[in-house]
């Protein structure tokens, strides 16, 4: 009966599930709509109110993007990040890297874990940024596609290279030229995210899984395969498997991949499209194999020895979570110093040893080896040269393309 004991979810898992899960019960809509409506709708009544609303075009931020920089006077930086995404000491209350930073620079980091989901967080900061107001945050961490959207909308500030000498020197080659921010004018990666195929050895029971095709076609895996609900991860892996490059994906490639996945959905091959909640299913063996995030696999492996991963021959998908400075942030220079601080290999290693995602910093491997040898040898944390050669990323999409692709993907996943 042991195996049926209810899961004891680690705090990290709970946070991850929450993170995958947009919002707890639609709380967001009401709050942000209220804020957004306050300006337009308060003064008018009746039907006229309806046409008085409307949402102004983005990018036309009033009074420029930057605020007066209070960095010199106020020695703080407000840093918003995802849960469980920074090093913590054994007491669980202190973040050693941030404390080192405070000791060295005298700048206190007000660290808040208030980003649980890209889409939700976008909804949260949209009203302020659209209205050209300060969000109260100096540094935020967002995944590629959302970072790209904010840059496209003109809602984040250009970084000052003079404040970022280490970041410029130590950023790993593979992250230097994303098509949405060439030369990293606006953003620097916090951590790299890998999308690979994971499986449960016991549940597979000898069935070989090496590619997305195996997941989609092997009848023995019917109903025991899951894909990610992040459009770019699932579609990118499928497009790769079909011999196309996600960095140059065309509408035709995309439609062909959708059709291929749709066939698998229709015959019941794919059990679900999931957020991070696939992890418990995979550990239990309800899911035998799936498309998964490398960071999750590293964490899962420490508890479930049956879980392992494979890099398909066709390649794997890489993306990053990026640090950005929103418009009107009060402490821009302080935020830049913090970005630069995390590009010091020693700090980067300290961070990677704890969070188990890929480090975007050259030289982190040597430093990590001093702290934790196993992590330094783990390709999911420090990718090998062969692995880097097989990495691909999904290309930047325009506003219209993004909506169209998300819509097609939503149809595939049932809504």
């Amino acid at each position, binding site marked *: 009966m042991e195996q049926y004991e209810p899961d004891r979810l680690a705090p990290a898992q709970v946070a991850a599930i929450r993170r995958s899960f947009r919002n707890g019960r639609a709380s967001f809509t009401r709050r942000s709509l209220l804020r957004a409506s306050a300006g337009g*709708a308060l003064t008018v009544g009746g039907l006229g109110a309806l046409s008085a609303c409307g949402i102004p075009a983005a990018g036309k931020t009033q009074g420029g993007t930057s605020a007066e920089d209070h960095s010199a006077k106020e020695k703080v930086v407000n840093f918003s990040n995802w849960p469980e995404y920074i090093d913590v000491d054994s007491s669980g209350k202190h973040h050693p890297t941030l404390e080192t930073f405070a000791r060295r620079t005298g700048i206190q980091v007000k660290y808040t874990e208030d980003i649980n989901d890209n889409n939700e967080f976008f909804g949260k900061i949209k009203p302020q940024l659209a209205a050209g107001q300060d969000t109260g945050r100096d540094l935020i961490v967002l995944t590629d596609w959302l970072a790209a959207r904010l840059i496209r909308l003109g809602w984040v500030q250009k970084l000052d290279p003079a404040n970022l000498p280490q970041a410029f020197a130590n950023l790993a080659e593979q992250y230097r030229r994303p098509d949405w921010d060439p030369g990293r004018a606006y953003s620097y990666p916090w951590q790299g995210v890998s999308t690979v195929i994971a499986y449960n050895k016991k549940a597979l029971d000898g069935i070989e899984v090496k590619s997305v095709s195996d997941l989609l076609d092997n009848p023995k895996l019917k109903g025991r395969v899951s894909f990610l609900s992040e459009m770019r991860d699932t579609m990118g892996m499928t497009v790769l498997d079909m011999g196309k490059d996600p960095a140059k994906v065309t509408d035709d490639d995309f439609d062909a991949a959708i059709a291929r996945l749709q066939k698998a959905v229709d015959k019941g091959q794919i059990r679900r499209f999931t957020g991070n909640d696939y992890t418990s299913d995979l550990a239990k063996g309800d899911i035998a194999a799936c498309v998964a995030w490398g960071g999750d696999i590293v964490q899962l492996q420490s508890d479930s020895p049956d879980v392992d991963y494979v890099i398909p021959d066709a390649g794997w998908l890489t993306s990053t979570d990026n640090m950005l400075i929103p418009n009107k942030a009060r402490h821009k220079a302080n935020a830049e110093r913090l970005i630069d601080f995390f590009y010091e290999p020693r700090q980067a290693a300290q961070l990677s040893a704890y969070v188990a995602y890929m480090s975007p910093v050259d030289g982190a491997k040597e430093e990590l080896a001093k702290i934790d040898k196993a992590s330094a040898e783990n390709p999911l944390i420090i990718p090998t040269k062969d692995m880097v050669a097989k990495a691909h990323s999904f290309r930047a999409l325009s506003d219209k393309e993004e909506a169209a692709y998300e819509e097609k993907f939503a149809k595939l996943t049932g809504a």
Partner: protein
Amino acid sequence: MTAVTEAPPPLAPTTPGKKPPRRRGRLTPYWLLLPGMLWLVVFFALPMIYQASTSVQQGSLEEGYKVTWHFVTYWDALSEYWPQFLRSVMYAASATVLCLLLGYPLAYLIAFRAGRWRNLIMILVIAPFFTSFLIRTLAWKTILADGGPVVGALNALHVLDVTNWLGWTAGDRVLATPLAVVCGLTYNFLPFMILPLYTSLERIDGRLHEAAGDLYARPWTTFRKVTFPLSMPGVVSGTLLTFIPAAGDYVNAELLGSTDTRMIGNVIQTQFLRILDYPTAAALSFILMAAILLMVTIYIRKSGTEDLV
């Protein structure tokens, strides 16, 4: 639905020559109403107006949104997503019926038979709801796990063969099927059924049962003719409190379901947060609201308990 009756103004003092306090007294009820009215305006009326406006806008994030009275959005949304609407109503109705079947006997037991265990059982009903909705739903993934005892037993009893045939489950599993979603909905909204049932059952005068017995009614007849009709207010409010949130829920479908179990709440969420099609999301919300309002009105009319709810 309760009729709002205005509090009568306080009686005017009879002694002449004391006018100022009288005038102030007349305004008091309105001042007392003010916080409630403000709350309604800010948290109900304004968001509604805003959403109504959004639903007839056109545009995109980069170009901005303008009100163009584009009512076609409603038609498009309905013709595109009617299967999800229908599914939501069916799942919510199934969950409501299951809640009633499970909740009524339990509420009856607590009200009439529990004796000194009453408080303990009440706590047992409510206690799980001190934890997060999300964690409770995730627990069902363990309960219904593919290799778990529940699914094993259902398989051994060939129950799954029947549910497979009905299309409620697929293969040898319950998770990621309609049955799992309905189970999750039933569990998550059960207390909203039990509590109103309990309050209306508990209010029934025990002497009515004795009287029914004295008049040679068998227990079943007593239940049918006395207990159940008197508990109707609880049944109606319980079913409403279960059905309405269940119809709009998306958490259970997201965690326990699959691609063919997505409910209208999932669609609205996807439209709003992922596709950023705010007009369609707003239109879907209004259609859902109108549909629920219509169904509830018909239901209350039919059950003839307007004055009791």
